[in-house]
Structure formats: structure tokens, C-alpha cells
């Protein structure tokens, strides 16, 4: 039967190619990690493919933690070369890396990203935010009349009269996102301290660490929703809820100004300028990590890292800044670091 022959021959072809695959070594850079860094990495990867004779690198998403976990799996062609992260690598991750033989890691800071709070274009304006408001809105336990209680608030105006009298509905990044960590550090923890809740917790007999953890607990009654997907998912939730406030990266907001209205934080509107100057309080550095053992083995790896941080790309007039990255004033130092392959 010709059908059987056809199947048999295609089976043979598949088997041959499988053998060929094992013999063939990888010729492209393999990147994974933060979905915040992904857009920038994709811009660089496309330009890298267009401007050099190396093949276009493959950039996967999945979150900072997932990326670093795969980065630390070991050394070799079947592991990734670069991990993108929207936060610095943790001590524990460096240890895991070392256990698996990934000892020489080059840390590259590419610039800064602002975290913005935005609501629906047609919804009420939120223009009087301070970190304390966010904490009061979504903290699991807050300070009311000098006492720590389960969060009783339902509307924004209940704790800040300058805010609109609408129901609290926040969409915050899920725990697998690096953005969540910055959100906790720069907004929840500061809000917790500013409202005095943290002090009250410590006075109530908690240790400092326990109090910090308690500050980061988010209420679970549906007023705050963890978004594990991408910013587009947050945008869809905001689209469906005129009172909803979502947490976005600056670049995403700037690409969707027709749908989103940005909230000011402590009276400052987030722009690349206010973030670069440090006036806007909620920003974080973006990184990628390079496996030094792969330099010289995977063709184009060092060239990719150098291309990424070159003035023409990551500088203030480059395509990354045009997309929304706040360029790093100390880029020259980073360039030198990459050129010398300085490890952590």
C-alpha cells in the first residue's frame, strides 16, 4: 500500500533528522525570562539579526523567576544563555546556580522601567495617590483609629477624601512577576510604614520580619486581583471595569494612552524624565544575566550582549528609549563591564 510506504518513509526522515539534530550544535543565542524585558529584548534581537551575520536570537517570556530558574539549571547547549529579569538576582538563586555549575555570571543593567497605575480612559480620575492609599486599599490588615484590623474599606474616598468615591478594584501583578516584588517594596511596604501600620504591628508584639511580611499580605476578598498573565490581561480587566486600577509598565501605558489614564503618585506623573530624575518614586532597574561559560561556545552571545547595551540601542536616543525604557545614565560603565566580561 502506497500509504504505508509514505508513512514509513516520513518516519525514516524524522528519525534521520533527529540524529542530525543531536549532532548539530546550536548556533543561535537562547534567551528567557521577564515579560517586562521581553519587548526590549525582542527589539534588540530583531535588530541584531538584521545588523549582524548571526541568526536572530530566540527570546522567551515566562517571568523573571522562571527565567532565572532555567538559567541556573546548568551549563551546556541545552540550557539558556541569557536570563532577562525585572529585578536583581537573589542570593538563593546564585547559590542554586553555583550548585549546578553556573558560577560565572555577568550582570548587565539595561535601564529603568517605571511602574504606573492606570485606570480606564472614561473612568474617574485618580490624581492624588500616595503609597499609603494603595496600602490602605489592598493591605490585608490596616491601621484604623490606632488599631490593626482586617481591611474594612470598600471605597477609595473612605481613607483619602481627595480620591473618587468609587469601589476599590485593583489588578496587581501575580507573584511570578518581578514587577510584584517592586510593587511590594516600593508601594506596599512604604505605604505600610507611612500609615503607621507597621509600627503598630511591631508594638503589638510582632517581630520586625513578621511585621514586614504582614505588610505585604494582600486582602483576599476580591478587591485586589492577582494577574498572572501579561499586561494585556490587566488591560482587558480594566476595560471591563470603569473603576478598576491596574499596575502597568511605563512602556505598555505609553503604547495605550488612548485606552488608559495614568494616576499620579505623590503628585508626580510618570514619564521617562520624571523616572530618570528619580522624582517618580516607583521605578526599578531591568537586567539581563549572561552565562560566561557560554561565551565563545554559542556564536554571537557576547556580540548580542554588547549590541544590547550599545549607545545606539540602549542610549537615550535609541529604539529602546523610544519604546519606553528609561535609559541608564551609567551605561558606559555597563558597556565596559560587558566588554571585559566582568562576572558578579
Amino acid at each position, binding site marked *: 500500500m502506497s500509504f504505508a510506504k509514505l508513512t514509513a518513509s516520513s518516519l525514516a526522515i524524522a528519525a534521520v533528522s533527529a540524529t542530525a539534530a543531536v549532532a548539530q550544535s546550536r548556533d543561535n543565542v537562547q534567551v528567557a525570562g521577564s515579560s517586562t524585558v521581553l519587548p526590549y529584548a525582542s527589539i534588540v534581537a530583531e535588530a541584531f539579526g538584521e545588523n549582524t551575520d548571526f541568526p536572530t536570537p530566540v527570546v522567551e*517570556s515566562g517571568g523573571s523567576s522562571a527565567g532565572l530558574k532555567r538559567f541556573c539549571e546548568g551549563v551546556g547547549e541545552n540550557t539558556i544563555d541569557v536570563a532577562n529579569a525585572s529585578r536583581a538576582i537573589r542570593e538563593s538563586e546564585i547559590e542554586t546556580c553555583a550548585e549546578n555549575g553556573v558560577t560565572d555570571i555577568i550582570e548587565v543593567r539595561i535601564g529603568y522601567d517605571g511602574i504606573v497605575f492606570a485606570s480606564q480612559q472614561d473612568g474617574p480620575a485618580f490624581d492624588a495617590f500616595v503609597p499609603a492609599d494603595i496600602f490602605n486599599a489592598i493591605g490585608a490588615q490596616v491601621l484604623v483609629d490606632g488599631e490593626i484590623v482586617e481591611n474594612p474599606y470598600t471605597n477609595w474616598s473612605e481613607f483619602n477624601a481627595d480620591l473618587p468615591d468609587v469601589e476599590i478594584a485593583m489588578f496587581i501583578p501575580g507573584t511570578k512577576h518581578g514587577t510584584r516584588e517592586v510593587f511590594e517594596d516600593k508601594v506596599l511596604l512604604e505605604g505600610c510604614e507611612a500609615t503607621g501600620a507597621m509600627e503598630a504591628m511591631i508594638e503589638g508584639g510582632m517581630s520586625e520580619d513578621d511585621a514586614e511580611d504582614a505588610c505585604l499580605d494582600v486582602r483576599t476578598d476580591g478587591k485586589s486581583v492577582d494577574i498572572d498573565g501579561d499586561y*494585556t490581561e490587566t488591560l482587558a480587566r480594566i476595560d471591563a471595569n470603569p473603576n478598576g486600577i491596574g499596575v502597568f509598565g511605563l512602556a505598555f501605558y505609553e503604547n495605550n494612552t488612548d485606552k488608559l489614564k495614568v494616576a499620579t503618585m505623590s503628585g508626580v506623573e510618570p514619564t521617562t524624565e520624571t523616572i530618570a530624575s528619580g522624582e517618580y518614586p516607583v521605578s526599578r532597574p531591568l537586567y539581563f544575566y549572561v552565562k560566561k561559560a557560554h561565551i565563545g561556545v554559542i556564536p554571537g552571545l557576547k556580540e548580542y550582549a554588547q549590541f544590547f547595551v550599545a549607545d545606539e540601542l540602549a542610549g537615550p536616543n535609541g529604539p529602546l528609549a523610544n519604546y519606553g525604557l528609561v535609559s541608564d545614565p551609567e551605561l558606559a560603565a555597563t558597556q565596559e563591564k560587558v566588554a571585559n566580561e566582568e562576572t558578579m
Partner: protein
Amino acid sequence: MTDTSIPKDAPRAKTSIHQIDALTKKRNAAEKRFKAYGMAAIGIGLFFLIVLFTSIIRSGAPAFTRTVLEVDFTLTQAQYEEAEGQLFKTAAYSDFFIAELEETLTADGMSVEFDADTIERILGKVGGTLREYYRANEDKLGEPVTFSLATSSRVDGYFNGRVTRDGLEDSRFLMAADLDLVDALEEAGIITSEFNWPFITGADSGVDNPGGAGIGASVVGSFFMMLVVLALALPIGVAASIYLEEFAPQNRFTDLIEVNISNLAAVPSIVFGILGLAVFIQFMHLPQSAPLVGGLVLTLMTLPTIIISTRAALKAVPPSIREAALGIGASRMQTVFHHVLPLAMPGILTGTIIGLAQALGETAPLLLIGMVGFVARGYPDGFLQGFVEPNSAMPAQIYTWAARADSAFYDKAWGGIIILLIFLMFMNILAVILRRRFERRW
């Protein structure tokens, strides 16, 4: 029991088959009602199908047109060498192009005000196209060449209705005032709309370049994956089912296997992705992001579907066929391969195509083996390389586009769905043709 309860000489009611009694009426009414229910069910199904298709086509249509700027451009040898000497070469090409376009437009005496920044905002990413062209055609240096270059995503949106003048907020991406120049260029016939061939044939592009995004490369990726699935899942699946159905003894062990095959069919597809990462990439050292690995993972996922449907098809062949064959002295293997299998073939093909269609639309197992993300390597260098060179797959590409900030990519995602459906349609047509060829009546 006897019929004593019916009085013998009770007068029988005179009825005629032409006269419809109450019970018949009731039965007829029930039949009518049932027909109505059936038609309503089909109607609802069709209604949702139409809603789905109109929404897909309406959302996806913009992806198939693109707005281009058609102009003559001359690159001198000196400019070429200067651009090639830089690190970010494509940006240099782009700058030369913008400078020359500004000069031409000023000389033409455009009635609206503009500067180089305006042109930069209107224009998409042109550097890559220009560099690729001049690298391949160095002899064209110094003479004018007509280029059709994609405009920026917002200008494109202005032409297909996604962006309106009123809704546009001034930003570094596009100012409302820039649209005056766009209108003027459209009147002059420089900006036109055309069919978006690069979308059909191209590869993925960076997030700031929706005009350059294409699905072609991922169609090829999906094609190679389907090839692997077909080449592995069909023979393995059919062999397993024939053995289980025709040869295997009925005992506890085969029962256990049967139960487990049914269970496998219900396992979430992401589990196969995890397995694929652990076995194929980490243990067998197959390359990441390769359609070969994707195909292997999807084979595992498709196997239970194919086995279950093949066994059903084999069961449906009447035992009399087997008995007749055995009766005239055929061996069991001859019976299966000469008589049972050909008759079961249409059913097997249906099951296979359902399995393949399911595999074609699957994203989750591909997440962990590196096929979801920015994979823009383009077409493989050859047939065999097609299996191992990094590539994406159609559903993965659609998923990636849907997550991007620029809403132009949202249109592309819908356009990708249309291409996926067309691919699926071709697969189904092929299945129908094959089924017709194998169909035997008895």
C-alpha cells in the same frame, strides 16, 4: 396470562387508518416537536458559527492590508559604506532615507508643515528592508530604486480605522498634526494601501515594528510539527490499536493498559510539555525551540486520541468479515491487513485528523520547550533543518502577538487565527479526499 380480561363480544370501535385518533396525533406531534428541537439546535449552532466567523474576519481583516509609502530612493556608494561601517547599520539606512524623503517632499512643495521627526513618526522601521535590498543588489547603488515601505503602526491604524484623529493623543509615536502630512501624502498618491504579502510570508518582528510582522515562518514551523506528529503518531497509534483489538488476550494487564490510555487522553497538555522538556531537551539533548521537539511532545498528546478512535473503527467492522476471511483460510494477520484495516481506514483517518487538528491548535505544551516567545529566525535553510532550526508555531505566534502592547499586533493575532483556520481547512479537505479513496461499502 390469557385475554380473559377483554370481554369477547365488546363492540370494536370502528376506526380507519384515514382517521387520525388521539394517540396517533400525540405521536405525530411529538415527532414534529422533536424535528423542531433538532432544527433549533442546528440553528443555534449555525448562529454561533456565523457570529464567530464574522467577528474573526472583521477583527482579522486589517492584518491583510498594509499602508505603504511608495517613493524613489537613491543610496550612494559613500552612504552605503558609511552605513555598513556602523554598529547599528539599519538605523543609518533609515536616517539616509528620511533625509532624502524630507528633501524630495520639500522640493515638491508640500502645503503642510513637517520636519524630519514627522517623517520618522509616520514611517515604520525601514532600515532592515533597505539594508537587505542593497546587500543583495550592490549594483543598484547610485541609481533611483522605487521602494514600498510600511508606515508606522499608528498611521496604518489611521487608514483601517483603529486610530482616529480625535482619539489620538499626541505622543512621541504620532502627533495629531502629523496626520495632515499623511493626508497630503495620500492625496499625492505616495501613501497607499495594498495587500499585506509580508504578513503571509514573513517572520515575527520586534514589538516596535508591527508593520514587519508575518506569520509565514510559523506556518512552516507548524507544518514540520504536523509532519512529525503524523509520521510518529499514526503508525504507533494504529499498531497499538490493532494489537490491542485483534491479537491481545483479554486479561488484567491489557485492561490496565486500556484504562491508562483513556486516562492519558484526559491529561492536561501542559504536562506533556513538562515531560518534553525533561526527556527530549534535558535528557536526550535535542535542541530547544525546534519543531522536532514540538512534534514529539504533540505526538505524545495525540497518541491516545488516535488509539481510541482507531479501536472504535476496528470494532465497527462487522465480525462476519473476519469470520469469512478466517473461514476461507486466511491467517489472522491476513484477515486484519487485507480485510479489517481497509474497512476501518476511514474511521482511522477521521480520528487522526481530529488528533492533528487538536495538536495544531495547542500552545501550552510548546511553552516549556521554547517555541513561545520571540522566534524570528525566518525560513529554515533546507528540509531537514526545518525540523531542528528554532521556529514558532501558529498558535504560539498568535498568543505572542495578543500579549503585545501595540494594538496593531492585536489585529495581527486575529489575522493569524484566519490563517490557522485556513491551514486547518486544508488539512480537513485532505482528510476528506483520503477518506473517499479508502471508503469501501459492503
